[in-house]
């Protein structure tokens, strides 16, 4: 039988998963829960039974979340964040769709590109389901270190992919890297149509945006874009997702609020 402290930690986590994310609200509900459990135990009820009754009296997280959302500033902020996230994803999907259509010549390559895009979006949307499986990290300091480590790992992973793996799949006079961050690399093919694309300069290894004048004519550089400016977006997005996921999952343990 799990002891009371473990049950409270699991309950906090359950509430967080159900949408009660604010540590302050969770602390207050936990304080209430403990008071109720203690009072019942003074009346001779077992700890396990007292905990069950107290949890039931506080109610389910979803119902509470809806009540908190009705009036709180947090509710408005959450809606704003969701709107920004939807806009960001829509922009990414638009860019990827344009890229796949213009840079992938065959139907097979386009299908692979769209599948990759779908998988990435599904992974992003499925992230919350993964959160409850993550471990609890009671110490704030340790949690912050892990968040930063995840962010750096995400950055490193994507930089490795873009700088080391991706160039092996590209060919052409300047090792062309079309502007695709969300899709699979094409298999040994240059852009099929005259659309703007990115090139990595052989000398200084920086990226240039190439805008062809017309098919077959000499293209020219229009601007130089630092590597991090363009390809930094994806690693930051992934790293940020990892960090946020961990921060959400890693609820504070009871000993921290009583300290």
């Amino acid at each position, binding site marked *: 039988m799990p002891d009371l402290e473990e049950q409270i930690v699991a309950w906090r986590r359950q509430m967080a998963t159900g949408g009660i994310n604010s540590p302050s*609200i969770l*602390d*207050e*509900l936990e*304080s*209430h829960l*403990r*008071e*109720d459990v203690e009072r019942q135990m003074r009346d001779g009820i077992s700890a396990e039974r007292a905990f069950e009754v*107290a949890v039931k*009296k*506080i*109610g389910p997280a979803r*119902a*509470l979340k809806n*009540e*908190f959302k*009705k*009036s*709180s*500033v947090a509710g408005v902020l959450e809606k704003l964040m969701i709107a920004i996230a939807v806009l960001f994803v829509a922009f990414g999907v638009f860019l990827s769709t344009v890229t796949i259509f213009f840079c992938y010549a065959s139907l097979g390559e386009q299908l692979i590109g769209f599948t990759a895009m779908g998988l990435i979006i599904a992974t992003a949307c499925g992230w919350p389901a993964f959160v409850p499986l993550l471990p609890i990290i009671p110490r704030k300091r340790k949690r912050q270190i892990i968040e930063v480590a995840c962010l750096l790992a995400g950055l490193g992973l994507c930089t490795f992919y873009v700088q080391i793996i991706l160039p092996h799949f590209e060919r052409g006079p300047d090792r062309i890297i079309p502007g695709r961050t969300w899709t699979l690399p094409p298999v040994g093919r240059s852009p099929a149509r005259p659309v703007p694309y990115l090139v990595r300069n052989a000398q200084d290894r920086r990226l240039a945006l190439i805008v062809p004048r017309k098919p077959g004519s000499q293209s020219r550089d229009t601007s130089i874009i630092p590597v991090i400016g363009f390809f930094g977006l994806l690693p930051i997005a992934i790293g940020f997702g990892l960090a946020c996921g961990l921060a959400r999952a890693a609820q504070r343990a009871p000993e921290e*609020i*009583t*300290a």
Partner: protein
Amino acid sequence: MIPKELVAASAEALILSLLSKGESYGYAIIQEVRARSDNHLQWTDGMLYPVLHRMENNGWIKSRWVKMENGRKRKYYSLKKDGTRALDEQRAQWLKVHGVLTQLWGEQYA
């Protein structure tokens, strides 16, 4: 048992009235309302907190964490000036409803 709609409607007035007697915290507020109503007014415990937070956002009440002797923390709420004004308004409204009902029932059962 009083239906939940009436319990919800009276929540703010009850909380403001209790806090006008001095600062208190969630669990104590629930226990006091329950005791004073002979268990007829029963909130789902968790539902008190969204109401308290809404009242705090309205500027009616303020809160502070207090460390107890056993090391635990409690969040205490107390009335602000705007809360006292809100309480006066709500008291006038409830007394009006009460007056009309008393008047009607007085006529009916006279």
